[in-house]
């Protein structure tokens, strides 16, 4: 990916940076938590957000489907009819919606993508050795729900400029180490 990280190994704070992408693929928040990351211009970040949004959509759609057991024989016997071929396959886990890309790992960093029910995506760049990334992402989501969504001055889908969110996010990540 385009974020190359030149980092000191075993850094004290294992969270490198956070990106929030709205449901249209626009970058609405970007923050670095560690010095020494390669600087990207704002435009690069916008491109990164848009690109990731597209890649995420592709990974959702290429989720492999498994043939259903009971309809497997009619598909084989009558290939001319198109209806059974579409309905004869299902996702491996039918009750769970397709999530798309969740982790992306390199030897230097690990990208965790968390998508909310409304389509907002939180991208968290961490050290690959960091444990309990899910807890961190959930806490960030909680802070977002509190200090961004409950702020009457925040306009939906627009860049996040909430001082209380920045403050609490920074304080929580600092206190975690």
């Amino acid at each position, binding site marked *: 990916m385009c974020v190359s990280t030149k980092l000191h190994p075993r850094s004290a704070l294992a969270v490198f940076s956070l990106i929030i992408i709205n449901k249209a693929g626009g970058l609405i928040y970007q923050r670095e938590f560690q010095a020494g990351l390669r600087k990207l211009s704002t435009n690069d970040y916008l491109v990164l957000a848009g690109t990731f949004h597209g890649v995420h959509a592709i990974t959702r759609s290429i989720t492999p489907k498994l043939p259903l057991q009971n309809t497997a024989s009619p598909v084989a016997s009558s290939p001319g009819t198109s209806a059974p071929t579409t309905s004869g396959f299902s996702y491996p886990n039918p009750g769970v919606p397709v999530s798309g890309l969740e982790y992306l790992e390199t030897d230097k960093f690990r990208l965790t993508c968390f998508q909310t029910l409304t389509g907002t995506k939180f991208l968290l760049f961490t050290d690959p050795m960091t444990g309990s990334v899910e807890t961190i992402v959930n806490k960030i989501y909680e802070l977002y729900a509190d200090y961004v969504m409950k702020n009457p*001055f925040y306009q939906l889908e627009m860049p996040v400029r909430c001082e209380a969110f920045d403050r609490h996010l920074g304080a929580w990540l600092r206190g975690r180490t």
Partner: protein
Amino acid sequence: MAAPRHSAMLSISNASTPQSTSSDKTQVQQPQSPAGTSGLRVPSNRKTIYDRHLNRSRNAELSRASFAYLFGEMVSYAQRRVTGIQDLEKRLNEQGYPLGLRLLDLLFYRATSTSSSALSSSSTSSSPPNRPLRILTLLHLIHGPLWRLLFQRSADALEHSVSPDTPNEYMITDNEPLVNTYISVPREMSMLNCAAFVAGIIEGVCDGCGFEAKVSAHNQPTEMWPSRTVFLVRFGDSVMEREKVLERAGVK
């Protein structure tokens, strides 16, 4: 003067009575006619909100998130068609004012019903006079019981202006106002403090007690308390004159 605003509020709350002007009447009675004679919805067990005991919700707690969403919507509502920050604060103040007038009654009711154990002694001379007559008693009422009723804790400081030019100014400090918990004011509106709503409540309480006052909320952030707010209470000249007379008479 306190009287015009107070009486204006009373007339608003009584607007549905037949004494209102004819233009009000047509507006008010149109929606009422299909609903029946009383505009009040009565549940099947005939118990309305007015049949409940006032102390019923005394220790009840409210979801902080739902309050945050409600208050956020109130701020957004007040923000529509305003010309500036002062205008917005004035609107928030006006939203809080009637609340203060009514909270005062509840506060006194609950104070008396706890101090005198039996309800039978109400409205007789046995119950101590609760209405504050002096400024300091009023401010202590706001700082303590009112704050506890609203936020479940006392305010953080109560100060008197040190400047000799403004002896009528008092400051009530809240280090972390509940209403501002989730609110980040954008940089271009940095003067705005949404606790103007609470200032309106204080103003309502003061006016309800007969102390004409203007209350405003100001940001005074510190390193430790970034949302620290000071409520500046400015009493009117008539109140200060009366205060002097009461002081000479030795009224507590």
